[in-house]
Structure formats: C-alpha cells, structure tokens
C-alpha cells in the first residue's frame, strides 16, 4: 500500500499522493492517530472545517490470512472531544489494501448541503452527486449502491444519524456478504462524515490485487501456522464459532459484571434468555437464513459472527453481538433476543452505535420515559430517533446528553462516551481502561478480562489495563482481530513474522510495543492540548460511592494509581 488519497470536500478536489516514508510501518490506529495529531488542531470544532476523517486499513490488510483485515477510522470525535479511533471488521480494509490505498483522508467542509458518494476503483476516484440517497437508511443505501455499482463492492455508509450529525452516529462497513453491518461505532465519527456531506464511500476492487509480499516462503509458513493454532484452540475453534461473543453473557453475569438496568447492578435475572446458548438454540431451530457461525472478514476461520433469524427464518439482524445484548438487553432490563435483535437492526439502519444507544435508552428508562424491561417502548423510542423528533434527537446524541437533559445523574460514561457491557465495579481493570483511555470509555482500548488478576480487587488493575491498552493498540494498528490474539496467545512471533514477510523489514514484538506506546502517547498529547487533564481520567462518581450489589464492590482504584497508567518506562 503506497497511496494516500486526499479528498477535499470544499473544492471537490481529489489528490493521490505517495505515502511518506515515515508512515511505511504504520497502519490502522497508529496511522490515523499520527495523521490526526499532525494535521488536525486539537482545539478544532469536530464538525467544522478543520477536522479530518482518516480511514486506514491495518498493516496486514489485503491478504486472506484469518483475522487480519480490520479497518480503522479516526478523527477528533464529536462525542468525546478527544482524538478517536474506531475499529471494525468487514471487507473495506481488504478492498482498500488491494487497491494499494494506505489511507483515505476527508478534509474540509462542503459549500452546499448536497450529499455525495466517493467512488474509488483502480481506474478512477470521483465524487458523485447522491441527493437521491439523502435521509435514506443504511440498508437501503447499500442496496442502491450495489444495484448501481455491482454486488462485489465494499461500502462505507452513514445513515440518517450521521447526516443529522447525531453524536452517537457510527459508520457502517460492508461484510463479506455486502451487508452494511460492521460498525466503526464509537465516538460519533458518523457525524464527522455527515458534516463533510459524504453519504457513502464505494470501493470497487475488481481490478485490485494482493499487496506485494516480500518473502512469500515465510509468509505462507506463518499463515499455515496461524491457521493451525486457530483451529486447535478451544476458544477460536469452538466457543467463538458456536456462540460468538454472546458466549460472554454467562461469564459476565457470573462475575456480577453484566450491566443491568442502567448499570445499577451486574446480575440480570433474565440472563438465561439472552445468553450464547439461547442465541445458538434459536438460530439452529429456526434455521432459514440463520447461521450461528459466520465470517465478517474474508478468510476468517473463527466465524464468531452470526445471522439471527426470526421464527419464520427471515433475518432479524446480522450480527447480534455481546455488547448489544448487554447494553440494549440487560442494561435496559430486556430479556428477549427478538426485541434486542430488532433494536440492533434499527440502530444499524439509522446509523447509530448500539452501545451508546443502549446506554441512552437505559438512562431514559431511569428517567421514567419508559419502564425498564419495556421492549416495545424501546422500539418506539428508536422510531422517534428515526423520525428526528425532539425526544429522538436527545436519544440520538447518546447517553451523556440524554442524562443531562432528563436530569438523570447515574450516567455510565467517561469523557462523554458510554461504557461497554462490563460493569467497572466488578471488572476493575476495565474500569481503569474506561477512565484512562484516550478514547473515553472503551472496552476494545484495553480489555482486561483475560488478565491474571482477581477482577473484584483493586490490586494490579492499573498494570493489567496498561498492558491491555498496549496489546489492544497493537491489534488496532496491525489490523488484527483480538480473537486471533486468544488463539496465538503468547506467540506474538506469528504476527511479527507475518509483518516481516510482508514488508521485508524485520519486525519484532518490541517494535510492535514501541509503535503502540508511541501511538498512545501521541493521542494523550492531543487530548491534553484539547483541554483534557487528570480530572477527566475518572469514572462517574456513583461508581465510587455505591456498591454494585452483584459483586458487592465499589470502584476503588485510586486516581493516584491511575495517573501512572502511561508510565511506560519500565517496559
């Protein structure tokens, strides 16, 4: 990948540049954060002319090794006001890499309110008028684009939420079936894309090719080794394939960490109705279009994704994942996968982050708008969001705004972004990540559930979060799915060998860590200049004062300890 595409939406100019040497070993989050830190003022208005949206495949993108084709989208986030990287699976990283594109940068603000498509193929890159797609849902938009440009395209699409610049809006990437449901969900980056008038990006890689591989022999050997470890590992060959991420419901519930009724407790009495086994049983008995083991990226052997059908076998949503089951299920007191699936589909279609929307609905329930457990009511609320009513606008801007407007004080957010489906009083390492991550409350920024710590104790949690933030940032920039990490475990040599064989330049685990640490420090510096300080690296107060009844703990990792999180000197 050597091309950097700059699209200026103010004057509709498109420039293809050669990627500078200093970016050679960067990709994904390392590249998006480098570019944003260099080219975007930390104090800019995220929806103004000076913010940029940077789309970058990971370093390994473009090959069909299992689990290596994730995409990063970065910018200054409208929801948090911090630097942001939002990550997804699907096919868009693969397709961009096959066209030799290292980064796509959207700049400026349009002079009109027209909607445009950015069309990218091997032969041309152009902005095409798309007023007929204005105010269209994501799924219809994808259908239209496929009819117009062919079924094999990759798509990056925003829904009405992004067009309206709702802060909880995400960006949908196509999966390998062309379904627009792999979300760069967090931080409101859909609003940035909407501010630039870009409704969709179409990627036609029919004339693309596999990226150059410097050492074919080493590459093939390493790829085969990775394949072997994935199919021999209990988690990646069995648990993830059969239950997907929904397998986490029982685990989180047993830890007292399944957010329930607006993070008021960590144990949900309806957990058995929304867990991995229930989802698997429904999919396999209903059959039809359903599939419990589905791949989102080309070549993926883990197949943790799924297609969830209704009782007639017609798809309700694909995929239905743990985070959504948590935030739109137990967190809302809803113990019905059909309802959760429908809520998921509606969010996907309007173009919203299911985590922030689930948290927002939970806050609305606490505020008495509807009752906890009212699934039909939640569907009506999302209908209001779609219709852009005043209540809809409040909800569509996420949990933090919802809480402020409705006078709810128990709002589970850090730096304005809603927490994921792990209660921080029960998994304290994640509490540290939520508080200290440059991304705001974000589980994929530093997942500690696998760390060798007792999750309910404050001991060792800062170290666990620090290590997780480094290793997650590594995955975020090389473009690997975390789940491959579960398979290869300590043997990171498999990933470094893959990179070495692709680039021809020797890559070690130390190199990966160094790049990840540099990325985190770059992001931290951006946030500091944007106005953030230690006072922002905390959880909401109620987590410190009120016990999670399920874990019988409060969050008690001290600020003093957490402030040491980015002290990487000992590494």
């Amino acid at each position: 990948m050597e091309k950097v595409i700059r699209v200026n939406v103010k004057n509709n100019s498109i420039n293809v540049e050669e990627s500078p040497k200093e970016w050679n070993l960067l990709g994904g989050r390392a590249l998006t954060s480098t570019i944003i830190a260099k080219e975007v003022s930390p104090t800019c208005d995220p929806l103004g002319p000076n913010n940029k949206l940077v789309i970058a495949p990971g370093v390994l993108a473009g090959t069909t090794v299992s689990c290596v084709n994730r995409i990063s989208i970065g910018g200054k986030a409208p929801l948090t006001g911090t630097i942001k990287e939002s990550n997804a699976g699907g096919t868009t990283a693969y397709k961009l890499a096959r066209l030799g594109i290292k980064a796509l940068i959207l700049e400026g603000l349009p002079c009109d309110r027209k909607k445009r498509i950015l069309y990218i193929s091997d032969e041309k890159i152009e902005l095409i008028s798309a007023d007929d797609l204005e105010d269209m849902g994501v799924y219809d938009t994808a259908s239209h684009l496929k009819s117009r440009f062919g079924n094999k395209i990759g798509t990056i699409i925003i829904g009405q939420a992004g067009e309206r610049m709702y802060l909880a809006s995400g960006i949908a990437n196509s999966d390998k079936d062309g379904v627009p449901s792999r979300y760069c969900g967090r931080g409101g980056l859909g609003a940035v894309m909407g501010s630039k008038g870009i409704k969709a990006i179409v990627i036609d890689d029919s004339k693309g090719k596999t990226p150059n591989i410097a050492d074919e022999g080493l590459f093939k050997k390493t790829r085969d080794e990775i394949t072997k470890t994935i199919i021999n590992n209990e988690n990646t060959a069995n648990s993830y394939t059969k239950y997907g991420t929904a397998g986490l419901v029982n685990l989180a519930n047993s830890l007292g960490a399944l957010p329930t009724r607006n993070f008021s407790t960590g144990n949900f009495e309806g957990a058995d109705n929304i867990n991995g086994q229930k989802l698997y049983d429904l999919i396999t008995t209903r059959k039809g279009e359903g599939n419990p083991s589905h791949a989102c990226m080309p070549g993926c052997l883990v197949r943790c994704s799924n297609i969830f059908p209704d009782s007639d076998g017609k798809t309700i949503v694909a995929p239905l994942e743990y985070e959504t089951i948590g935030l739109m299920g137990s967190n809302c007191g809803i113990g019905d996968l059909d309802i959760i699936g429908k809520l998921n589909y509606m969010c996907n279609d309007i173009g919203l982050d299911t985590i922030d929307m689930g948290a927002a609905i939970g806050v609305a329930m606490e505020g008495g708008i509807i009752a906890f457990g009212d699934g039909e009511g939640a569907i009506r609320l999302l209908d209001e969001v779609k219709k852009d009513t005043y209540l809809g606008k409040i909800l569509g801007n996420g949990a933090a705004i919802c809480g402020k407007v409705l006078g709810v004080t128990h709002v589970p957010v850090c730096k304005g972004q809603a927490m994921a489906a792990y209660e921080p009083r029960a998994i304290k390492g994640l509490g540290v990540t939520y508080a200290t991550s440059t991304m705001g409350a974000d589980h994929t920024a530093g997942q500690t559930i696998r760390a060798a710590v007792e999750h309910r104790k404050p001991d060792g949690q800062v170290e666990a979060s620090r290590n997780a933030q480094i290793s997650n940032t590594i995955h975020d920039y090389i473009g690997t799915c975390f789940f491959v990490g579960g398979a290869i475990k300590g043997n990171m040599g498999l990933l470094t060998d893959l990179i070495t064989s692709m680039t021809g330049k020797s890559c070690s685990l130390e190199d990966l860590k160094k790049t990840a640490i540099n990325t985190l420090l770059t992001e931290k510096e951006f946030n500091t200049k944007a106005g953030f300080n230690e006072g922002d690296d905390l959880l909401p107060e109620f987590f410190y004062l009120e016990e999670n009844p399920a874990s019988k703990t409060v969050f008690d990792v001290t600020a003093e300890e957490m402030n040491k999180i980015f002290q990487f000197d000992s590494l």
Partner: protein
Amino acid sequence: MITIQLELFLGGKHGEVSHYLQENTALGSFLKELGYEASDYLAIINGSNRLEDYLLKDGDKIKLFPAISGG
C-alpha cells in the same frame, strides 16, 4: 479430603461434576490435571474469579469459562 463442584461453560461441554481432592490443592494444578491450562480459562468461585495459586476449599463451586471477550 475436600469436595468441590466443577461446572463447565465451554463450547462443547456442559454439566456439573463433583471432585474429591486433597486439602490445599491449588486451582491451577487441579485444572491442569483435567487438561485445562489455567490461563485459557476464567474460573469463577462463589462469584469471584480466582487465579492459579488459589487454594481450593471444601464446598467451593467452580464455574469454568473460556477466557473470551466481547465485541
């Protein structure tokens, strides 16, 4: 001798089984005997996750989960 219960929440297996062990058996060694590498799993005992060096007590109920994370 102590009695503990092991309940498996794994992809391919279910069920709760009683085990009879020597006192002061460490969790890690117990799991290893059964073929489970402790670092691949989360062992939740009476609501808290315990690590390899935890000494099992009479009446402990272990829930064993694969160490996966969500998305």
